[in-house]
């Protein structure tokens, strides 16, 4: 038996897998899982077969496309989920963050200076890529600690643009 907490677009589900049965919150299903390719799986739940397309993002994170709907998911064992909850409450360790460039591009605008207080969701940087300007938002609340690029400079994918403490 395995016990998981799985987040789907920030909503959490409790999932227990037990041989051919799977329980999600209070509903229990018989399931069969067939791999069609690395990106496509067939999941039979009772009498319904779902044809599912999967993006694997690594470390328990997936992008799931089912019938034209797309969900981002993150799977954690219940134990890890509990440990993280505990840490989050204890310290601000999760409040720190690095904003990385999600793709190569040109830094068009930086909206903050070192020392500014920011909230999660604030637009910190405008990055131009694929002929479009893209807003990069802070995922963390905190204070701007370091800004490593200037407006007009190019960044590579994964470059840390801003550190939030």
């Amino acid at each position: 038996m395995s016990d998981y907490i799985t987040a789907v677009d920030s909503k959490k589900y409790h999932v227990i897998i037990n041989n051919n049965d799977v329980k999600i919150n209070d509903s229990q299903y018989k399931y069969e899982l067939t791999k069609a390719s690395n990106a496509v799986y067939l999941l039979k739940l009772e009498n319904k077969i779902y044809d599912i397309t999967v993006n694997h993002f690594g470390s328990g994170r997936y992008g799931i496309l089912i019938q034209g709907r797309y969900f981002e998911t993150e799977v954690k064992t219940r134990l890890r989920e509990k440990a993280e909850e505990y840490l989050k409450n204890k310290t601000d360790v999760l409040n720190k963050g690095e904003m990385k460039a999600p793709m190569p591009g040109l830094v068009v605008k930086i909206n903050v200076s070192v020392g500014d207080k920011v909230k999660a969701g604030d637009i910190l940087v405008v990055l131009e890529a694929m002929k479009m300007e893209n807003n990069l938002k802070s995922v963390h609340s905190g204070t701007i600690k370091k800004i490593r690029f200037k407006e007009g400079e190019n960044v590579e994918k994964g470059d840390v643009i801003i550190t939030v403490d």
Partner: protein
Amino acid sequence: MFKKILIANRGEIAVRIIKACRELEIISSVIYTEHDKNSYHLREADEAYLITSQLKISPYLDKHEIIKIAKHIGAEAIHPGYGFLSENYEFIQLIENEGLIFIGPSSKSVKMMGIKTKARELMASKGIPIIPGTTEPVRNFNDAVRAIASINYPVMIKASAGGGGKGMRVVRSEAELEENLARAQSESEKAFGSNEVFIEKYIPDPKHIEVQIIADKHGNYRHLYDRECSIQRRHQKLLEEAPSPTIDEKVREEITSTAVNVAKAAEYVNAGTIEFLLDQDKKFYFLEMNTRVQVEHPITEAITGIDIVKEQLNIAYGNRISFKQEDIKINGHAIECRICAEDFKNDFLPSTGQILHHRLPSGPGIRVDRGIGVLSEISVHYDSLMAKLISWGNNREESIARLKRALSEYQISGVVSNIPLFSKILNHKKFTDFSYTINTLINEIVHNDEELNDDGNLAEVAALISTLLNDKSSKLTANKNDVNTDNQWKIDYE
């Protein structure tokens, strides 16, 4: 007919042109860059040529190199697609000078329509309704104040050489004028290499209606009715439909005949689109002419039965338009969704990666024009349009129902696509009663909390599949398409 042409483009439009060539038995050749080795258009073309540029620009923009290849391989004509060099009159001039044929209008028409102030001046002189404002460039603050005196605030400053929302600014009072004028001029300079701007009356919450026209070299002009493209994000079209659900037969008749007059005024040849803004009193104004094939041309093909790209090739060769105006009637309703590599839940951030899986929807009334296949790369070098999903139905309701059904069948893996966005748009009240305008915030639709009925259930399925995949103990049954290990016909070497 031509024996061989060169397609100076990539992606879905290159593939679309290849299909027309194949039906007309023309050899289709394409160019591709180092970044594009796995691109889908190479797989469909008869011939593919690697192009490199000495200039510090995308090779798809290297006019001389493209023409050199065309001559070298014996292509008689060049199809530019849309974007890239399609509306570059210098490119067309070079092609004309080299004795090749440009599949599109003359360099003269393109130049005339490319400078917005010149186009406005021409249209005004022919009695075509233009948005009140200047037909001459506005150079400074005093020019601007004088221009605005006769039209009143709010006004819109636009780039003369512009398009795509760049260099465009709304000004609501004189206090905002100086700064906005300066910013529009500098944006325009940066984007188009010219700081020339003009001023128009701002039209609040308009709709975007356009008319497809076709003209041949023998003085024949036809229209293929209208399209509505009001669902936009940052002035980029997302979803288009034909015919427009907003206008009635009277406006339709006026707008289509006006479009034909615009084409005549521009001495236009080949396929083109006249864009109009429709205000809240259903009055329409000439906005601009797109002197090329449009992304959204398939919805017009769906309701008229005319193959626009084949007409383009025929006309460029010197043939007459293949149909009479009175033979063209609107048949049913069509809608197109632009399937892009964009994560709309994450502020429309472009998504890059390699396509791992691509399953096309099918069934009655469904067409997909695509520029991607398994292994092709979605990179930062090109725009994020991967494919276009087009549905046709006997009426708008059937077209919407088919589109929703097809969206639920469409599968792409390797990047995040905007497929789910369209279900939200199609289910939104402002879409079903077509009260949306070009200013309807797509965010309003994205963050519409009216949960689609089956979303809850599917979220559960998403949780289950993710957990099962993550669970190391889950046993996957072997796929029948995998190498079959139970093969009874194994050769026994012993």
